[in-house]
């Protein structure tokens, strides 16, 4: 019961976040200089659809969905716009360009101070649920308390690709490699090899029994092989990035993709589609091509040791994990492969652990009890 409530709060919290951004997007779109009567009408319809979709989107039984507002919104928007402007390519182009212009601004806005708003919304939504309506006031009270508690961070450590731009002193910045290693170690203490495929880069990391990195390899600033590779392909196909995996998984015979560059792969995709090859087969080939690049980084960092943990946004993509599993088994034998639903936070988790360690001067010990609980929560 207790977990159920938390789960629902989380669902509604995400909904709140999503709605706020949708509102901003809507407002932005209507303010766009290119808006005409026709587009206004279309936009109204599109947004009505988007808000409606959002209602159920975060519920636990709904599966494939991106964690990124942009992905969700853009796939929804595209689909609706395509439907509405079936034969009117001018209208379609106009709608898309309005969207492109606006999303950029919505995305680069900061929503950091909205915790209370989100929480209140989440609380009100949740108590509407029949399972909790009886405890409405107790829940409200508890949440009001939770919201009022001030966080007192004892230490902060920044990491990630953009870490150099953080306004932190040097000792509060840690390489994302180390953070990923430690984060993965915390989630799965048996981990020896970590693969992180993020949006902008891919890292293969070897760690020791304490979660300390012993070797690593990462790719350069090239989208081929990172999450954006799939994002770009999804854009090419007017789809959300989270929709690719499920389609690719239907493939029975994958196509070999020859282009390494993401943009060229996009062109190859179009070419192959026009040659009549199946969408799912090409997509499967694209996923495999991306995982092959990761395999080569892994090989270079020292191979794959038990246990192997796959983190980063792409770990949510079933076709990518599928291709990875196959290739790992073929080349390194059976290995325990850990994939966490929260994997996109691995780096942040590692940074937090370093922050704690730096402050308290202790090496991090994994709290097994807590971990079990966490795993159970994830399983539920």
């Amino acid at each position, binding site marked *: 019961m207790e977990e159920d409530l938390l789960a629902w709060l989380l669902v509604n919290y995400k909904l709140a976040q999503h709605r706020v951004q949708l509102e901003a997007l809507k407002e932005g779109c209507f303010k766009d200089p290119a808006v005409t009567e026709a587009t206004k009408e279309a936009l109204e319809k599109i947004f009505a659809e988007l808000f409606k979709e959002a209602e159920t989107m975060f519920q636990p039984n709904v599966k494939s969905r991106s964690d990124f507002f942009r992905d969700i919104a853009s796939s929804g928007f595209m689909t609706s716009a395509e439907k509405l402007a079936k034969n009117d390519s001018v209208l379609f182009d106009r709608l898309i360009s309005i969207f492109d212009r606006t999303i950029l601004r919505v995305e680069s806005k900061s929503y950091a101070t909205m915790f209370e708003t989100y929480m209140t919304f989440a609380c009100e939504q949740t108590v509407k649920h029949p399972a909790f309506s009886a405890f409405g006031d107790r829940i409200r009270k508890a949440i009001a308390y939770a919201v009022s508690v001030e966080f007192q961070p004892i230490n902060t450590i920044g990491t990630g690709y953009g870490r150099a731009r953080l306004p932190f002193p040097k000792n509060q910045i840690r390489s994302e490699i180390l953070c990923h290693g430690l984060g993965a170690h915390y989630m799965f203490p048996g981990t020896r090899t970590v693969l992180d495929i993020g949006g902008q880069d891919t890292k293969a990391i070897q760690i020791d029994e304490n979660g300390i990195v012993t070797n690593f390899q990462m790719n350069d600033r090239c989208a081929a092989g990172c999450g954006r590779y799939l994002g770009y392909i999804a854009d090419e196909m007017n789809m959300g990035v989270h929709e690719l995996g499920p389609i690719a998984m239907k493939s029975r015979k994958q196509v070999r993709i020859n282009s390494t560059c993401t943009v*060229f792969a996009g062109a190859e995709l179009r070419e192959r589609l026009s040659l009549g090859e199946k969408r799912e087969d090409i997509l499967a080939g694209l996923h495999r091509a991306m995982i092959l690049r990761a*395999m*080569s980084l892994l090989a*270079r960092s*020292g191979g794959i040791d038990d246990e192997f943990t796959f983190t980063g946004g792409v770990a949510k993509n079933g076709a990518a994990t599928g291709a990875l599993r196959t290739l790992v088994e*073929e080349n390194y034998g059976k290995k325990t492969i850990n994939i966490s639903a929260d994997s996109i936070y691995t780096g942040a988790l590692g940074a937090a652990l370093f922050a704690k360690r730096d402050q308290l001067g202790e090496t991090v010990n994994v709290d097994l009890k807590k971990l079990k609980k966490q795993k159970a929560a994830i399983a539920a």
Partner: protein
Amino acid sequence: MTAKKIIEDCEDLYNDLDFTSVKTWKEKTGGKAIGYLPVYVPREIIHAAGMLPVGIMGGGPNLEIIKGDAYFQSYICHIPRSTIELGLLNKLDCMEGFLFPAICDVIRNLSGMWQILFPEKYVRYLDLPQNFDKEIGGEFYRHEMEQLLHDLEELSGNKVTPEKLNRSIGLYNKNRQVIDKLYAMRVAQPHLVLTSDLYLLLRAGNVMDVEDHTRLLEGYMAEVVKEDRKKFDNIRVIVSGAFCEQPPLALIKGLEASGCYIVEDDWVLGARFLQKDVPITADPLEALSDAYLNDSVSTSSKYEDEKEKGKYLVDQVKMLNAGGVIFCAPSFCDPALLERPMLTAALEREKIPHTSFKYAENTGQFSMFREQTGTFADSIKLWGEA
């Protein structure tokens, strides 16, 4: 067997990364096999020791590289990583020893890696002389060959007598003669002896007994004349630069498809490295050494101070009535790519058109090559020689 069927069989051999034909040979003869990397090794010595020399030319277009990348950075040519991949996949287990001839730093260093990776195998770096003086370079090379001969005797348990060695020399002489005939046939009728056919025939020689290979070539030549093959309005070109890592078969076919008949090339060059028969004498090692010093082809892994750079190529163009030269070299291949400016300079002095591009053995995209060779062919076709 029709020419088409012969080529199909050769293509199967080309695609067979398990070296089944080598295993079959071993079962049949009970002998051992020695793998060698490009470009040239004196196969006669291996043969005389009752062993099968097996040419290893990388993994080609079909091998997916998973672990090989762990050994080579992205800016090193492709052949060593696919060779290591083959090794790690145990596909080269059927060979008892490996020879790494001196050709470039990559192959040289690969020999050291092989020593570490496969300590149970016989691994030898064959240092070829760059001094072509019989008394100096010849002396050194002779030592190298003696050592090799001695090692192979030990490995095979067979004594190599001068008679045996001479017999092998004879067989390889014959093989080279037939290959030369095949090349001559292509020069005369490039539409008949397709370059892709010829290439596959040469590749087959990497993995089969020399006598069988000679018979195969003769069979093809007898059959192919019966074929009725269409003649296209193609230009005649010489392809140069691919002496080590081989272009994918599809690229070779693509060259023909984009309007070029190839009348000379340097792929599988080891099979044609010696340009004259090695004489049968009382001292076969000396004969082999002399052949290497005096009668081997001009290629970028050999140092040449006496001869004028590019003269060999220019002569070939004239002799074979070629319209131009296509440099097609593996990416990151220092010997081939450093040689290129010298050769192009020689061609330019003679106003011979040329173009160039780079490939990797597993390149999968050909449209850029097609554009380039096509434009090249167009320009020769539309405007003639000059």
